[in-house]
């Protein structure tokens, strides 16, 4: 066992600010959607707008960080051991088995995480943000100027934005739960707060071995 510095300072800052912004945007967004009343429509809409600009700003910084540090390579998808990872979550985890993949500073995401997070970054967030920007700028150009957004019906912009929001909420639930599947239930969250995580040095145990002898670590 050794302590490894796995999440950099900006990465942690980005993660937690993005998490709180997304939760706050969901809270205000579903109020604008008419699902409930907390702040009142006017305040909810105002807060939603402000928070959305903050999130867009943060994501621009995050993209810059990923590109300049080369961290984007962490998200290159792979099918190697993907199946094993899925099987682990379906059965291995119940038998006290080990993660089939090794977590290191250079490769901190397992194949399933790679695919899910890449989808999050390239599909889910863009759908929500692009539809959100269209929503935000709807009617910016009135009849005396060029009309860009007006001809696209607000109902479908709202559809995509709501769809993105619902998927993000589902992601949130599953994501928060999955953080408890580390070495101990809180080790992953601690790592995202402090940056350090205790990682194994040994090779990952093959799944076949786990099944034969579940009690052996």
């Amino acid at each position, binding site marked *: 066992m050794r302590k490894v510095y796995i999440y950099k300072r900006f990465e942690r800052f980005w993660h937690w600010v993005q998490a709180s912004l997304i939760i706050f945007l969901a809270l205000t967004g579903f109020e*604008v*959607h*008419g699902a409930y*009343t907390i702040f*009142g*429509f*006017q305040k909810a*809409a105002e807060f939603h*707008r402000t928070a959305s600009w903050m999130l867009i700003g943060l994501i621009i910084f995050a993209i810059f960080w990923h590109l300049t540090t080369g961290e984007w390579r962490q998200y290159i998808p792979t099918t190697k051991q993907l199946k094993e990872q899925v099987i682990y*979550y379906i059965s291995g*985890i*119940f*038998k*006290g088995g080990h993660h089939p993949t090794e977590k290191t500073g250079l490769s901190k995401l397992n194949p399933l995480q790679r695919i899910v997070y890449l989808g999050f970054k390239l599909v889910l967030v863009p759908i929500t943000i692009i539809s959100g920007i269209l929503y935000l700028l709807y*009617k*910016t150009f*009135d*009849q005396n100027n060029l009309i860009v957004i*007006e001809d696209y*019906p*607000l*109902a479908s912009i*709202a*559809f995509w934005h*709501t*769809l993105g929001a*619902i998927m993000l*909420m*589902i992601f949130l*639930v*599953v994501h928060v*739960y999955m953080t*408890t599947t580390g070495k101990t239930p809180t080790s992953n969250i601690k790592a995202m707060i402090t940056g350090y995580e205790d990682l194994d040095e040994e090779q990952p145990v093959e799944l076949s071995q786990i099944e034969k002898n*579940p*009690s052996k670590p």
Partner: protein
Amino acid sequence: MVRNILLVIVVFILSLTVFIFFNQEDNYNLKLEVLRHKYALKPIPSVKHSKLSALQRDFKTPQDVTEACLSCHTETHKEVMASSHWNWERVAYVEGRGISSVGKKNVMNNFCLGTNSNQKSCAKCHIGYGMTSSDFDFKNARNVDCMVCHDNSDEYLKGASMAGYPDRTVNLENVALSVGSPRKSNCGSCHFFSGGGNNVKHGDLESAMLSCSREVDVHMGSNGMNMECVACHTAQNHQMLGKLYSVSTDNTNRSTCEQCHTSTPHLSDVINRHGSKVSCQACHIPVYAKVNSTKMAWRWSEAGKLKDGKPFEEDDSLGNHKYMSIKGSFTWARNVKPDYVWFNGTADQYILGDTIKSVPVQMNTLHGSHNDRQSRIIPVKIHVGDQIYDKVYHQLVQPKLYGENEGDSAFWKDFNWNEAVAAGMKKSGLSYSGKYGFVKTEMYWPVNHMVSPKGGAVGCAECHTRNNGRLAKLTGFYLPGRDHNQMLDFVGLWMFILALVAVLGHASIRIFMNIARNKFEKQIINYDEDKPV
């Protein structure tokens, strides 16, 4: 000591920050301040008419006054006689009709129905003298009534059913010496009392506005800017800016809020952007008829009931007529929330002679739709009722209502519909089958006045709400907060719940298996330790 001062400064700055944070909406709006300053300065007239020798004389007839006016303003009658105030019609291109003349001369309404054959009474609100029938000479400048608009003595008064002549009590000399720019009381003498009483027709124009608070009308309130009607309804060459779509058709020469307030009056960009689809009035006139009641319904079918062979009237608790034998029964209302419609500035009227296309008969149709780029949501008063029509020709008919004597076939004297309609239609040059009935009607009155101070504007959530919002009846477009994709919300909610259930299920299995495994491991250990020594 120093520490205390520092503490005070810190507390002061903190409280200032908090204060500013909670008072964001009261940010200083320079545009409004400039406007206030502009309209605070009341113009001084360049001429005092009381000093003019041409007016220092006796006037036998009101026409003499007009001649005295024209002795200096030698060409002004031409301007006046080109106006709709004089002609009671405007020539315009109307969709479906072509170039046509539309105005009080030929449109019908669901109040006193129409002017034809009733001119002598209706002409109380015509800027002329001697209109007794449709044969009135619109070319005679001597009959232009300058005083009704320009009297500043508050003494001028048109007589009841006197074909537009002033009441016999009016001192023409005083009036002539007082003339000046029109005041609220001049415009109001007709526009407040149209339909036969105060606030009957408009709902947003009434005599209380001669002296009201800012809460009633932020522009005209006497504790506010105290503006005159003509401050906004300016006139070039006696052509008034502004029109009402009970008698108007085209999208020209309108008086708008934007002419002073610009299209970006708010500090908030989001609210400014609403302006492309929502009129200013929709939010800034939360209710109309704020002081006195306005008529919401008029049922002509009930007219003509007599007590002991004599016509009678019944009032409600507020002193409004509930029933009149000559007119039928009414519904009144106060502090009314407007209805809302899409409107692009063009309209069509029911013109005498038109065939009824649908029931309720639309006395006027405001054109517009959510997918029309020129259309905006405007507040309207919808006046409903029923009125007499020709069962055979399927037309609304024009009864002769006003008459001087019994036996004149006027309904208000004889209470005989058949004779009244026959006389009225004959005067209008139209045929009548002799079979009448009553048909439901609707009329749309755009609400433009009684603007509330900004604090009283309609709040966001009054429209952006799931149920019973102000715009609940306007459908076909997506309104955030009101509309949602039901399918998406349903599927989305269940997917979210399923995810929660899946996660909780997974967690419980893990916990259960973990406990079971720990027990198993402990048993092994215990077995080792419990070996007999």
